[in-house]
């Protein structure tokens, strides 16, 4: 089966359209174990380390089943890199999706048009028809996935499921055929239902937020230091399944509406609204502390950090901000900071 990859910092790519085109949507992730070499020939090393990492992988060659890439509007780095992808990635289909910056009716109308353009170009490139019924079918399937992920996510709060295991699961769902994902999630939920709380209650309950944090090893590293991600506000987490798409009415409009109504990311406006969901999570899950991770040179998160810091201080909720390199060696160097945070919360 053909695959369409998406390069997206905020999970606003309508996977349903790709599914309705009988292709598999595959989210592109960074790989912190590789060095960046070829990408640095195109992008200065002072630009987002995660975006350069993905470009590096793409230059070296993606999965041969991947027949196209959609880059979805994120930040200055990911947006501007698209033209470089056009320069050096030889794939039959490369599309830039302008997921809007704003969250109002005008932006919604625009987003619908851009999704329609995506459909038009997919149809033209692959000589297919993407019909409404199939989009609606894909919506229903994705909603099932979202429901299951929400249910499974709760087992983190019940101290049954490790944050790292959940993270790996969400990541896998974003990369495989969704029918297969559905089966995996159903099985997982059944297993969890029969499990009892077994995680150490002394673990500190953490809300994780920040940039794209896609290395499960990093979550394991935090766990090894006694920090349990009980809830998150990241795109390999709740931002992927926060709510469902309306299954009535025009499916394209419903998809656009879904993406513009879910909790905002730091790449969109007004990103300070992100604090509302963070606050809600801290209250609902009674977290011990909040960890905000910025990948090196991740400007949107860097701009938001001082505001979040101030707001959490007002609420007297412990908050740790860490700017980090995208490689596993750097995790160890951060041990002391995370340990110190664990001690104070």
């Amino acid at each position, binding site marked *: 089966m053909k695959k369409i990859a998406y390069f997206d910092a905020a999970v606003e790519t309508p996977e349903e359209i790709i599914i309705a085109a009988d292709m598999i949507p595959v989210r592109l992730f960074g790989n912190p174990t590789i060095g960046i070499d070829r990408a640095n020939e195109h992008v200065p090393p002072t*630009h987002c380390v995660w975006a350069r990492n993905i470009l590096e992988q793409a230059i070296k060659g993606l999965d041969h089943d991947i027949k196209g890439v959609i880059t979805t509007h994120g930040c200055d780095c990911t947006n*501007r890199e698209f033209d470089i992808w*056009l320069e050096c990635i030889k794939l039959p289909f490369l599309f830039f999706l*302008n997921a*809007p910056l704003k969250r109002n009716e*005008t932006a919604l109308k625009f987003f619908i048009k851009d999704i329609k353009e995506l459909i038009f170009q997919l149809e033209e490139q692959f000589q297919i028809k993407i019909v409404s019924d199939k989009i609606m079918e894909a919506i229903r399937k994705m909603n099932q996935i979202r429901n299951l992920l929400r249910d499974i996510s709760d087992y983190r709060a019940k101290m049954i499921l490790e944050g790292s295991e959940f993270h790996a699961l969400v990541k896998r769902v974003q990369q495989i055929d969704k029918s297969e994902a559905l089966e995996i999630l159903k099985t997982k939920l059944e297993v969890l239902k029969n499990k009892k709380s077994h995680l150490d209650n002394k673990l500190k309950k953490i809300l994780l937020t920040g940039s794209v944090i896609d290395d499960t090893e990093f979550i394991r590293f935090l766990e090894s230091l006694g920090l349990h991600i009980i809830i998150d506000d990241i795109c390999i987490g709740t931002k992927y399944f926060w709510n469902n798409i309306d299954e009535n009415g025009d499916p394209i409009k419903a998809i656009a509406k879904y993406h513009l109504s879910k909790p905002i990311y730091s790449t969109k*406006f007004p990103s300070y609204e992100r604090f509302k969901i963070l606050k809600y999570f801290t209250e609902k899950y009674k977290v011990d502390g909040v960890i905000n991770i910025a990948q090196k040179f991740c400007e949107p998160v860097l*701009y*938001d950090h001082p505001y979040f810091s101030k707001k959490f201080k007002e609420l007297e909720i412990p908050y740790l901000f860490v700017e980090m390199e995208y490689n596993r060696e750097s995790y160890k160097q951060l041990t002391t900071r995370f340990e110190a945070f664990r001690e104070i919360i």
Partner: protein
Amino acid sequence: MSKIKKTGKMLNATNKLRNEMGRHFLAIEQAYREGKPTAWATAGTPVELLYSMGVQPMLPENSATISAALKKSQNFIELAEDQGYSYDLCSYFKTNVGAVLSNAEMSEGGTRKPTFMLSSDVICDTHVNWFQVQSERMGGVPHFTIDVPHVVSNTNNRQREYFKKYIKEQLWELLDFITEITGNEYNEAKAREIAQNSYEMGKIWQEVFELRKNIPCPVSTRDTFGGLFPLFTMTGLKSPIKLYKRMYKEAKERVDNGIGALEKEEFRLMWEGIPFWYQLKYFSTLEKFNAIIVYEPYVYAFTKYTNPNITLQDVLKNPVESMAELILSFWYIYDLKTRIEMFAKTVKEWKIDGVLLHNNYSCRPNSCGLYDLKKHLMDDYGIPCLIVDADMNDPRKFNEQQTTNKIESFIEILRKTKKK
């Protein structure tokens, strides 16, 4: 930093720029005295619409350049960093945060709390984030942002049409937003008058640039970087037009008399990107190599009316809607393919020997694609290029000696290339 001797000739008219800046600051003071609405605006937003709506604009990034020119930006930047803003964030933004925090005077890059703020992501996300940050820090100033779809190398005409429509709709929403906040209504006749002035000002600048095609070049960066301020802040007003006309007249006289801005012009260069405002004199370093910058896409971009499809009639007929087309065809945000084509064309027309590309640590949208731009210009067109790593407003990120060494070697390459 070492002292650099000035040898190039600046136009006498450029000296009058100080008066224009003074006029701008006085207008701001007057607006506050009279209780007239004011607005912060980011570069690339249609400042003309603010003037049309009776709102006095202020552009904090231009204020930031003043701080840098007065060697005050580093202090302001460090103050912002003390507030938690990363070393890696935009130095204009941090200069503004520090300046506001210090209650700096307007003459040193300070600015005042506006009635509202207008930003756009047309140039960068930073503009939007910047005003979000400052709006909150100033106690919740109303903030309108214009979302400009990102044009890429394979954007088609069908897409451009609905991109434009999206921008147009937002511009009308902006006018409603201004009316709601200020009570001022949109006045078509006034908008036309402002549009006419804006068009005229942009075109005169373009004519000045046309004169720079001549050998020797009559106008140097002292005039262009120095004369840029009104293009950002006073678009739509009459007074800067007079200044630019004087600049044109003087430049034309030089051309007619075969006089160049540089005594001995040997190498003609292009400068891509924002200059280092804290060390503008550094550009004089080039003069000792008999080199002159004859074109700066950054400066030319702000002449605004670079799209031949937008005529004066269009602007007068639809002062609001024509802005949408102009925003989408803004030089500074060209997609990579267009950027390469436009650079090659410009190099040919302006008889340029080499291109200096500023890899500006603060401006990631501008520096992204710079390496590919360089590669194409060199490989496909045989144009010598040099990348200069620095920052527009943060002197800590400028290594003068290293830059000079690189430029010196580059000039040697140009010398050899010219001999062939």
